């Protein structure tokens, strides 16, 4: 899962980024609206965390532009503005949730999980597919009820393929989902992780569509 954090305060941004990266999300952090709009040109993000009090342009303006370009990712507003009017304006402006500073890190994580779940069309926190259960809260994987040891990248790749399943994902897209800007992407890395997952889950769990990418088919 790749998230974009738009927050001008260096200290708050630093802590949020560190916290979310600790939760194994790929996260990019920009500090002003110009950079945010630039980052949003490539529509790779699964969720936006948006501070409203940005220097230069207002956060709501970024939100408006993003939505008017057809951006679909859920947006969580993080702001110090706590009046009802501000909340209403934010939610009506296209945001999906609203978190007022100061807030608890756990609450932020829970809201991020909930928004990601909703945007994938799931009502339950766990992803279940063909005997595999991904517990998104605890970052645990189960195969037929037994714990399945997965690395963080393997887990992220599997989650990307299964949320929802039956969707072909290009290698480039999967790479984007796995890595933030600052992280080095080794060549063939997606292939390596797919290979490892196939070893653990069976060869037909992930299929290769030649020249297009990978998918986790709905049924065999």
């Amino acid at each position, binding site marked *: 899962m790749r998230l974009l954090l738009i927050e*001008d*305060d*260096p*200290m*708050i941004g*630093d*802590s*949020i980024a*560190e*916290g979310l990266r*600790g939760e194994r999300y790929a996260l990019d952090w920009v*500090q*002003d609206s110009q950079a945010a709009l630039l980052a949003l040109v490539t529509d790779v993000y699964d969720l936006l965390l948006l501070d409203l009090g940005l*220097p*230069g342009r207002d956060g709501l303006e970024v939100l408006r532009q993003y939505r008017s370009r057809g951006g679909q990712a859920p947006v969580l507003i993080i702001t*110090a*503005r706590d009046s009802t009017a501000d909340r209403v304006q934010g939610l009506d402006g296209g945001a999906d949730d609203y978190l007022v*500073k*100061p*807030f*608890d*890190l*756990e609450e932020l994580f829970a809201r991020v999980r909930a928004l990601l779940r909703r945007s994938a069309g799931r009502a339950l926190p766990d992803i279940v597919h063909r005997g595999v259960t991904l517990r998104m809260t605890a970052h645990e994987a189960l195969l037929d009820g037994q714990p399945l040891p997965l690395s963080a990248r393997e887990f992220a790749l599997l989650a990307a393929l299964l949320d929802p399943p039956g969707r072909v994902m290009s290698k480039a897209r999967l790479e984007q989902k796995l890595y933030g800007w600052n992280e080095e992407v080794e060549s063939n890395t997606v292939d390596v992780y797919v290979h490892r997952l196939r070893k653990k889950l069976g060869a037909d769990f992930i299929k290769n569509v030649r020249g297009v990418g990978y998918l986790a088919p709905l049924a065999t």
Partner: protein
Amino acid sequence: MRTIRSQLLLGLVGGTLACTVLAGGAIYFKVLEESNELFDYQLRQMATTLPTTQAASPARRQHGDPEEEVVIQVWDRNGGLKYISTAEHALSAAARPGYSTLASDDDRWRVYLAERDGDRVQVAQSVSAREELAARLALRSLLPFLVMLPILGVLIYAVVGRSLEPLTRLAQALGRRSPSDLQPLAERDQPPELKPVVAAMDDLLLRLDHALHSQRAFVADAAHELRSPLTALQLQLQLAERATDGVQRTVAFTKLHQRLDRAIRLVQQLLTAARQEADTADAAPAPVDLLELARACIGERYDQANARGIDLGIVESEAGRAGPCLSGNADSLRILIGNLLDNALRYTPSGGRVDVTVAHTCKEVVLQIADDGIGIPPAERERVFDRFYRGAGHAEWGSGLGLSIVRSVANAHGATVTLGDGPSGRGLLVTVRFGSSGTLVR
């Protein structure tokens, strides 16, 4: 302090009473004078025309009015009393003919003595009777006024009450107000006498409203601004709690300290900003050596600048070693220079340079602080003085109060603050000009 109503009542009724008494006195004396003339004439007429032959028969006229009662006496040429009209008022004869005033045992008498064919005829009238008549007449003419006096009092009381009604309304309107309601009174139909009062009060309310408004805005802004450092603190604390190994924990705690410092600094700046206005208003201005103050401020920051390899110092001006003095508050000016230096140091990269210049001409003292940091774009140079405004395009975190405090101090000293490009074309040049409103000592 008496009420206006009782003052007016006492003054007007008392004045009227005094005037009435004076008028009574005047009438009394006038009447007395007039009646004296008349009665004297009467006495003479009687004395010269009364028949003396039938002296034996008492010719007494009896009237009720004492002033019309006269005593007639006739003496023959030997001095024997031929006739007296009223036996109980036996008067001696006047010394010479004509008018004179005689005193008897219990009264004074106005007499006229005429000599006719050897007889002397004297007609006398009581002076006190005349005076009583005058007094009675005076009193009678004043009576209506005295009767009117209570009515006048009631009228004055009512009219004054009515006239003071706008004042009462005003008092009630003010009394009904809540402490936060500082709208102008906007009372129409005010008598002209009250208009200056209402206008002055409206003016005061307006200024009070403005002051209260800015205070509230400041408190709201301050509370709002405190959220950010507290958020940073809370998040970092939770990250520190989640740290799994020693290295992570050390890093987390270092960051925690930075965030705590930031929160503390914001609170300090808020306090400085809040105190600034009160202090500048209270403290009596004293001579301040700006150059010496700048040296002290630089000394306090030497370690900080040195650690980052920034060359911080004073550029000696041709003004010489003795610093120009100006009249002001040394503590406030120290904050001004300190904030400007802190800004310069914060936004100047390592290895940069910060120059302080204090120059003076006969008209003004100019403090300049130049750095070769990132500078401020011209479009933002006015807005950075706003409270809690923070410029974009840098990762530094400030309270957003520094320059606002600088301007506040400068304003209190009648000084101006302008921002420009640094001398090398990069960075920022802050110029503070003192002396436009007589703050110079010499």
